[in-house]
């Protein structure tokens, strides 16, 4: 899987620009659990907010810190990382690594002033569709309460770097 496919774009997440603000959330979902749980939620006709766009990851261990930071720099309002239950990772410890990375990014977001609560990680199994729906609803509610990301382009000027 190429790194490009792991890169979020808020515009893609939002679709057309909405006249009133709605939270834009990216959910990085592990193929073996969260993505399957999201699929199951759909099969069961469970409703969850449309603010979330899913990025299908082979494992949460594939999600590097840069992927999440890139989404925030581009102005995403919140990120959900959804991985397997601890001890249940298809690749043994990918979800444990993802937990450490998300914890570190939460610290960074707090220090930068974006706010740690905009990033959340959950652990669930492929059968836990209700948990997936609750997690999505939870982060949407949290981000809605926090308001738009201060890094949204409508506020300060863009400061993209070059590699």
């Amino acid at each position, binding site marked *: 899987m190429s790194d490009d496919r792991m890169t979020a774009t808020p515009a893609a997440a939002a679709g057309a620009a909405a006249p009133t603000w709605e939270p834009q959330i990216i959910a990085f979902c592990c193929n073996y659990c969260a993505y399957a749980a999201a699929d199951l939620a759909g099969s069961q006709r469970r409703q969850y907010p449309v603010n979330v766009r899913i990025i299908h990851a082979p494992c949460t261990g594939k999600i590097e810190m840069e992927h999440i930071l890139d989404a925030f720099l581009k102005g995403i309002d919140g990120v959900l990382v959804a991985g397997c239950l601890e001890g249940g990772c298809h690749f043994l410890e990918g979800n444990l690594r993802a937990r450490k990375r998300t914890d570190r990014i939460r610290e960074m977001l707090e220090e930068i*002033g974006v706010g740690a609560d905009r990033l959340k990680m959950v652990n669930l199994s492929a059968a836990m569709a209700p948990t997936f729906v609750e997690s999505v609803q939870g982060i949407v509610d949290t981000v809605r309460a926090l308001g738009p990301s201060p890094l949204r382009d409508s506020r300060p000027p863009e400061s993209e770097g070059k590699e």
Partner: protein
Amino acid sequence: MIVASPKPITELRELIAGHEKVLFAGCGTCVTVCLAGGEREVGIAGYAVRMARKLEGEALELTQVTIERQCENEFIKDLAEPAADVDAIVSFGCGVGVQAIAERFPDMPVYAGLDTQFMGLLEEQAIWTEKCLGCGDCVLAEYGGICPVTRCAKRLLNGPCGGSTEEACEVDPDRPCAWQLIYTRLKNIGQLDRLEEVAPPKDWSTSWHAGARKVVRKEHRV
């Protein structure tokens, strides 16, 4: 290897305050291995700083380049092109790298992006410990390969202090007593008799105490 740790994002942000075009220079040697200043860490620091600057509403044009080694002029040459169009350089090398780059670019502000710590060993994933102080007169042969100069908090050369236990140093309960390690090691290799010799006061003139040192190897000079 030389072990360093990243500076807080706030400090990085303050370092480059007032500079619009900045070069983040990583180093591909020691600080890459200790996960502090390699290409990946420079990238992550770049994201953090760009976010911080965006929040302040100030523009930042950030260039990121990681070279093989910042402590050799031969490799620093690779920074000449990316550095041509920036206002300041933040070096993510050790203190040696920062100074080497500063010498190479005399008209450019060069800042340290890391806190350089010590010469050490990777004990396990993401844990490093100090092993060598670079005293310039190695005594490891007399102490079974365990350095009392570096690893004994009091730098004792003739046995442990009264605060030693079999487990830990009295200064830091998380640190093993170097003299306990020396005793066990010498016993294991059958050289306990080395402890019967009294070590004279160490000659510290070879160490840092008289200022920065210099090594000249005339057989290799050209």
